[in-house]
């Protein structure tokens, strides 16, 4: 227990980094994921192909490698940086970039699956009563699809929070980084350290799961 109390400030700072990473990546993943799903259902084959290619590649690459690519490939080889002179700022945004690039593919797939939960008859019916594409999307398909994806999106968000730990490969200091230091450098009571950090992650992830689960049940479309 004492190990946790002694390093309390470092632990809080670590989890604060985790929250900052997860929150920013979540918002951006949602945006990019929506854009990707728009590409993937668009009537233009080239755009559809580009969306599919992106999702296929990113989904099948380990996140560890994606983040290494951001730190070395994008920052260093492509020379795309947010601000080279401020490493902490640069590191944060490169990590967000990697997490977003990876997570958005899962957001995209979840949204697409959500659209697929709406029975074909609904779309046919809305076309039959003369609604245009935009109208049938806005009034019939999307309201149902949106409700169907709340719980799965919650799972994606939980996974994202847990995945922030992998940012360690780019050397960015978040909670797992602090834990590793505590475990290997100053071997205190290892079990307490583990349980402490596990509890920290549970505090972050469990409410997300319950909240989205509750929302999904409340808003569920009854068929």
């Amino acid at each position, binding site marked *: 227990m004492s190990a946790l109390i002694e390093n309390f400030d470092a632990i809080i700072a670590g989890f604060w980094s985790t929250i900052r990473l997860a929150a920013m990546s979540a918002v951006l993943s949602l945006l990019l994921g929506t854009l990707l799903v728009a590409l993937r259902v668009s009537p233009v084959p080239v755009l559809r192909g580009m969306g599919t290619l992106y999702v296929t590649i990113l989904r*099948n690459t380990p996140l560890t490698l994606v983040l290494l690519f951001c730190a070395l490939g994008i920052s260093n080889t492509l020379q795309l940086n947010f601000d080279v002179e401020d490493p902490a700022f640069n590191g944060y945004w490169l990590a967000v970039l990697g997490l977003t690039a990876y997570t958005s593919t899962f957001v995209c797939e979840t949204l697409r699956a959500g659209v697929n939960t709406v029975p074909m008859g609904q779309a046919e019916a809305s076309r039959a009563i003369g609604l245009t594409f935009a109208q049938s999307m806005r009034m019939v398909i999307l309201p149902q699809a949106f409700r169907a994806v709340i*719980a799965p999106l919650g*799972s994606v968000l939980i996974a994202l929070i847990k995945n922030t730990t992998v940012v360690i490969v780019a050397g960015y200091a978040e909670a797992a980084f602090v834990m590793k230091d505590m475990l290997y450098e100053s071997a205190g009571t290892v079990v307490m350290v583990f349980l402490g950090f596990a509890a920290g992650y549970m505090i972050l992830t469990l409410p997300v799961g319950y909240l989205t689960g509750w929302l999904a049940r409340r808003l569920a479309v009854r068929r």
Partner: protein
Amino acid sequence: MSTGVLFDAPGPRARLRHNVLTLVGLLAALLAAWFVWARFSAAGQWDAELWKPFLDPEVWTGLILPGLWGTLSAAAVSAVLALLFGVVFGLGRLSDHWWLRLPSGGIVEFFRSVPVLIMIFFAQAGAFAIFGYVMPAFWAVVIGLTLYNGSVLAEVFRSGVHSVARGQSEAAYALGLRKGGVMRLILLPQAVTAMLPAIVSQMIVLLKDTALGYIIAYEDLLNAGFRVVPANYGNIIPAAIVVAAVYIALNLVLGWFATWLEGRGRRSRRSAATPMKADPVVGVPPLGA
């Protein structure tokens, strides 16, 4: 629902718009590709010297393939253990006895909400601190992956059993079967068919997650390709690209397998359970690291 029904057959203006969008898309893709190419050549990353090692069969047989074997064996062992873990705790959660159900639920929920990497660190450091035993990196990776993926699979099993139409178990009880018999003879055989795609896609997650072993220096594909190959040739970026290609190919094969299984499950009429999506979007976190 196929998206085709959402669109009208394009008229002349829509066709024009589509053509413009096609052009814009192509141009954007070309521009991005050219940009990457130019920056790579500026950084000298296309130098033949950096790529030549990958034409040398010895680099593959001596470094990359042993690394690949490390990845595959860790994935295979964790897959087997995770399946066992999943069956035990998934059925535990379905039990009628609270003293089985509650602890199983607690364990599953705990390991599902803790990051895999944290568990791997703990498996390694904890074993040494508590038992004075140096956990080989292989087992630290396997333990972490087993606990996490096993918990996810426990949920898959649970929802798989739930997905069998209730009439089936009611009918079985009416025939006079006991609890065990209903589960063994009626529910599980049908549930397994429904669960297979979800299980296989969890295996893809597991396979990708073995790359976390890189962080504790387990000799996997990523380590061989990203640490040892560059130590020989100083070609860290080309090495990363080659390793990524191998991972993508590996996961694509598994992914196709999942889709094929799903298609087969949908065609066959032997199960009263609806096949779960290959991408277990509902209720199960679809992605690992």
